[in-house]
């Protein structure tokens, strides 16, 4: 039995004891998966697993607290679940986790930059380390690394790190390719260059808050400081500086909590490289506290704990 069929079988067996199980089904075209909330055995027939299953379904979990929910997770999604559990935002006993080993997911943004508009896609299939696509009547055969989500290039945890059921074989973690990371490359630029870069990116932001609302760790939901009038930290003006202010608040609120799922960047309709901001914050917090978010359910958040003297923080006079 292949991974998908094994997963379907697991879900069908567990479903009678659950309110629903969240997975993915094919969306409006072959490149788009869409969340599938399975309540009946027939719903399970529509489940898909593969390189288009990009959404982190963990984002829906906090709002479903109180229900008995099953959730299908990739390795990166499972880290969000772990982090939510460690923050006591979920009840483990009401949660059934269906894990699998992920082969990587497609970045539509990277694919678009390779192929142009993706409107007329006929088929897309991952074959080993390539993505075979039929678009505009032409066959394209692309190295998967060129069009996968950036997070997949360095993925050290392709397998769900927490699960009640695990379907299919374990995948081997990626050995990060030699060479500089996107963040390292970016930081080679001068400060004025970096500032100009962000000004250009941030002026495009339309403040739709998709980055916030797709973030599994953004749990303030309807009470976000971005729309608060009191305190009035950010204005409604969608100028580069106000947009940047919002994005920086977002990053700060995720410091030590961001599980690097990349959903913010993927959700952005304006293709703003928010992952760079996240990567920087993760680099800083893991260097300071020697801790990575979403790996240990028992871990205490670095910014929720306090040592008189932090080993890695140099005190100023």
């Amino acid at each position, binding site marked *: 039995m292949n991974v998908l069929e094994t997963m379907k079988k697991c879900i069908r067996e567990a479903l009678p004891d659950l309110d629903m199980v969240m997975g993915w089904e094919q969306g409006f075209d072959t490149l788009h998966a869409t969340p599938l909330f399975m309540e009946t055995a027939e719903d399970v027939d529509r489940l898909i697993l593969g390189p288009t299953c990009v959404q982190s379904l963990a984002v829906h979990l906090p709002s479903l607290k109180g229900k008995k929910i099953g959730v299908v997770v990739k390795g990166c999604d499972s880290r969000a679940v772990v982090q939510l559990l460690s923050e006591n935002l979920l009840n483990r006993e009401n949660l059934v986790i269906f894990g699998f080993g992920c082969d990587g997911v497609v970045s539509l943004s990277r694919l678009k930059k390779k192929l142009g508009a993706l409107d007329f896609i006929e088929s897309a299939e991952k074959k080993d380390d390539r993505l075979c696509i039929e678009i505009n009547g032409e066959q394209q055969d692309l190295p998967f690394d060129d069009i996968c989500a950036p997070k997949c290039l360095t993925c050290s945890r392709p397998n769900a790190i927490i699960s009640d059921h695990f379907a299919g074989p374990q995948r081997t973690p990626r050995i990060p390719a030699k060479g500089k990371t996107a963040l390292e490359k970016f930081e080679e630029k001068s400060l004025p260059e970096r500032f100009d870069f962000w000004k250009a990116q941030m002026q495009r932001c339309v403040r739709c808050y998709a980055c916030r609302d797709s973030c599994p760790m953004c749990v303030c939901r309807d009470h976000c400081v971005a729309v608060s009038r009191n305190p009035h930290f950010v*204005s409604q003006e969608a100028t580069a500086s106000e947009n940047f202010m919002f994005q920086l608040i977002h990053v700060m609120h995720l410091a030590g909590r961001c599980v690097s799922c990349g959903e913010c960047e993927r959700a952005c309709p*304006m293709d703003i490289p928010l992952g760079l901001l996240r990567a920087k914050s993760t680099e800083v917090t893991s260097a300071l506290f020697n801790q990575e978010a979403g790996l240990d359910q028992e871990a205490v958040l670095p910014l929720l704990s306090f040592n008189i003297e932090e080993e890695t923080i140099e005190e100023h006079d």
Partner: protein
Amino acid sequence: MNNIFILRKDIDPWIKRMAEERTVFAPVHEGDAVVYRACDSGLRVELDTMPTTSPKEIVFPQNETLLTYTRGSGNEDGSVGVETTETLPSGKAVIFGTRPCGARGLLIFDQVYNNERIRDAYYAARRENTLTITIACNRPRPTCFCNSVGGAPDDSKGSDIMLYPLDDGFVAEALTSGGEELLALAPSSPAGEKAVKAKAKAGQAIETMGSPMDLSEVRKKFDLCFTDLAFWEKHSGKCLSCGICTYLCPTCYCFNITDEGSEEKGKRLRSWDNCMSFNFTAEASGHNPRSAKAMRLRNRIGHKFVYYPELHEDRLACCGCGRCITACPSSVDIRNIVKAVQEYSHE
């Protein structure tokens, strides 16, 4: 009116000439997004794909300053005066390279913002000074459904100039006197037989779209399913309540008004707002008539397919561009929801 032919390479000089009198907003690439930007020349204009953002921002910007205010010095009686200044926009503009659905979106706006009942001074000041140059769609996207909501890939309604694409250029036709003036600025040659060919091509595009959706029962069925919250919960489950669909939508016109600045000095700002957000209807008392995502999605569908038609001679507040489908991080497909309403039966 006469048809002329404009070579692709002549688009840039044409924009440059128009830009001497008007601000020309045309689609350009930024990241993987295609957005409208003020162009004179030198920016590579993208005329072959549907822009990510909609042209509404040109007549209804994301932020519009309604007035500025300054608190004066104290009066003799100890009270303090406030000076306010109305800030109406001025200047002429061109929307270059929208699709027919985008032009239709502006007509849907007009019904609300500039009609017998009300004339929104800010909107009218922009709209009445803006001309629209539309590109017919030879190849509608699979997510396009303009043919279901009263439009068509070659619909010229609401446009001052129509451009019908061919491989090497565009057959152009002015539909208004304003359009004629702009077209006179274009380096061009007579269209001749190209006109027939280009228009036929655009006219055939609708055949690639599949049959229009049957929306005949939607209004009646909406009343029936209104109180069926489970129905709306099912269809809104995967929605993230973000603002992508509303902000990219050519017809979504709801806004917020906030004062930005201090009590001493600042501006009153009108900003796009999102009916899918909890805060949209949250009242100071804590009460919220649309507290659940399901209720908000219901209102969004209701507004576009039931309430607006009720007020505006059965026209829909949806232009079928499909932006809400393609840009949604959860791939929520509004067509499926409307279809489910149409086919609703209570068991």
